[in-house]
């Protein structure tokens, strides 16, 4: 009896027959979508972002001296603070501030890190040494110590917090970028580009950078969480975002007073929970992005 060829085709074979193989980007996206924790994290982030965009600035800043330090009720879902501002509205609007600080700070730090890392990795030599030793110096200090010193120097404000976190956290993306450039600059296609007379700038931008971006993306996703936590810590100490503007960090500042912490716990628990939830969600998403970009790093 002659063996019949199998008539059932796998999904991949079908797709190949139709002539539409998955692009690497599509494969990455599919791997990301299959990562359950990452999808859950993404959902949490979307909810937090939408909620914080819906928050009412007027409610968050409007004082009501007849309703000071009120516990949660139908009027004020999460109670009021010591000058009668609605905690729910402040948590939402505070989220807007905290998330904006996080995103802008990471944008600053990644931009600086990419430029310096690319210069160090591409040109090597004394420039590389100078940049990398500077990185070593900055990395020897816990970021929060530098932040405290600079905060006392420039005075606290939203913009300063963003700029400071950005300016003091660039060494990590710089190191990542340098490492990528060091390896990729030796590839044959970079040499080929050199041979046909492409300028250094174009090579770095068009040939090396697109191939170096994956680990940077992973860094950036985790860094948003770090930046939000730094803002929270700084504002908790009273050196970050200043009242009356709410941020998750400066709402936590009320908990520095032990009796407020105990008796008016509704004033600091909501921002504490949203902060942890957001950071947790970002970590899940970051993990998902890492696994999706690098299938070999699975199970880590």
């Amino acid at each position: 009896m002659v063996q019949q060829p199998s008539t059932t085709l796998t999904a991949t074979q079908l797709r190949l027959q139709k002539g539409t193989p998955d692009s690497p980007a599509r494969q990455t996206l599919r791997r990301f979508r299959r990562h359950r924790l990452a999808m859950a994290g993404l959902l949490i982030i979307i909810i937090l972002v939408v909620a914080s965009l819906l928050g009412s600035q007027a409610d968050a800043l409007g004082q009501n001296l007849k309703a000071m330090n009120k516990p949660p009720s139908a009027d004020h879902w999460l109670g009021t603070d010591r000058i009668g501002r609605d905690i729910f509205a402040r948590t939402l609007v505070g989220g807007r501030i905290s998330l904006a600080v996080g995103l802008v700070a990471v944008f600053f730090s990644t931009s600086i890190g990419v430029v310096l890392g690319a210069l160090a990795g591409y040109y090597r030599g004394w420039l590389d040494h100078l940049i990398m030793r500077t990185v070593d110096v900055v990395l020897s200090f816990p970021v929060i110590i530098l932040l405290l010193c600079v905060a006392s120097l420039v005075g606290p404000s939203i913009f300063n917090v963003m700029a400071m976190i950005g300016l003091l956290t660039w060494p990590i993306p710089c190191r990542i970028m340098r490492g990528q450039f060091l390896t990729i600059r030796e590839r044959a296609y970079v040499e080929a580009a050199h041979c046909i007379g492409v300028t250094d700038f174009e090579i770095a931008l068009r040939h090396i950078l697109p191939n170096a971006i994956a680990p940077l993306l992973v860094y950036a996703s985790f860094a948003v969480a770090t930046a939000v936590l730094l803002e929270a810590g700084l504002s908790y100490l009273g050196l970050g975002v200043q009242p009356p503007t709410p941020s998750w960090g400066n709402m936590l500042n009320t908990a520095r007073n032990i009796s407020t912490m105990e008796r008016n716990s509704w004033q600091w628990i909501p921002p504490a929970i949203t902060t942890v939830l957001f950071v947790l969600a970002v970590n899940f998403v970051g993990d998902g992005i890492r696994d999706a970009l690098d299938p070999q790093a699975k199970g880590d």
Partner: protein
Amino acid sequence: MGRYIIRRLLINIPVLFGITILVFTFIQLTPGDPVSAYIRPELGSSVEMRDQMRKQLGLDQPAPVRYLRWLGQTLQGNLGYRILGGQPVNATLWRVFKASSVLMLTALALGCLVGIPLGILSALRQYSKLDFLLTALAFLGVASPSFLLGLGGLFVLGLKIPLFPIGGMVSTNSDFSLLDFLHHLALPALILGFGYNAILMRYTRSSMLEVIRQAYVTTARAKGLGERAVIFGHAFRNALIPVITVIGLALPDMVGGAIITETVFTWPGMGSMLIDSVNGRDYPMIMGISLVVAVAVLLANLLADLTYALADPRIRFK
């Protein structure tokens, strides 16, 4: 090995100078006149008096001169006098350094003793319920900075169920006793340790997972070694190498976490002192603390590098 040590040491010397220059520059740029903090308000402040004070404090010299003078004194172990109160920085720094070290080392020990074994367990039972639970806990530990955990811990275990004191290092109303001290130490150390624990667990797990797939582990199993000998004799020792580096690299973050956690528990260490000094513009104290922290971090990294080389011949002989 000797050449490796010397190279690592040489690389660190410019970094050390960079640190001192950075610290000094920061402090020079700080606004506010330290002289104001030094003159008692009830004496009033005439221009002559301020000038005299400035001269007395050496603040009238140009910056490079002040830097070199400061560096010279620093190398001799003299960190000057505090602007608030006028005590030597040395003495205060030593006191807060001891307090911080006790807290951090206890937390680090707790983190290692719990985190590393749990990381191994988690790797050996990959994708089991236990692994899932531990990973979730580790995520929570990484996501909640120690000061938020500290606020939660203080609220629940210090105020609602008052098992632990709410702050300080010793009770003020009684003589010093070791038990009382440990009672104060327990909560902040546990909270801080939980964060370290999470980091170490994650790294031990992934490092262990990597090692366990290596050919030499299969060989060890194939030649009939017992599971215990395979795990501890072959896999664990190699898995530990990257973990050592991680402890060195994570140290700045750990110190950073400790700084805010200290203020939550009013632990009289370098963190609380730093915040007070920043608020009081106590330049010499800020300099002293930043310097000590940065040098400690540098030394820890060096130590990690050397341990790494000691444990891994591939690095030693490169």
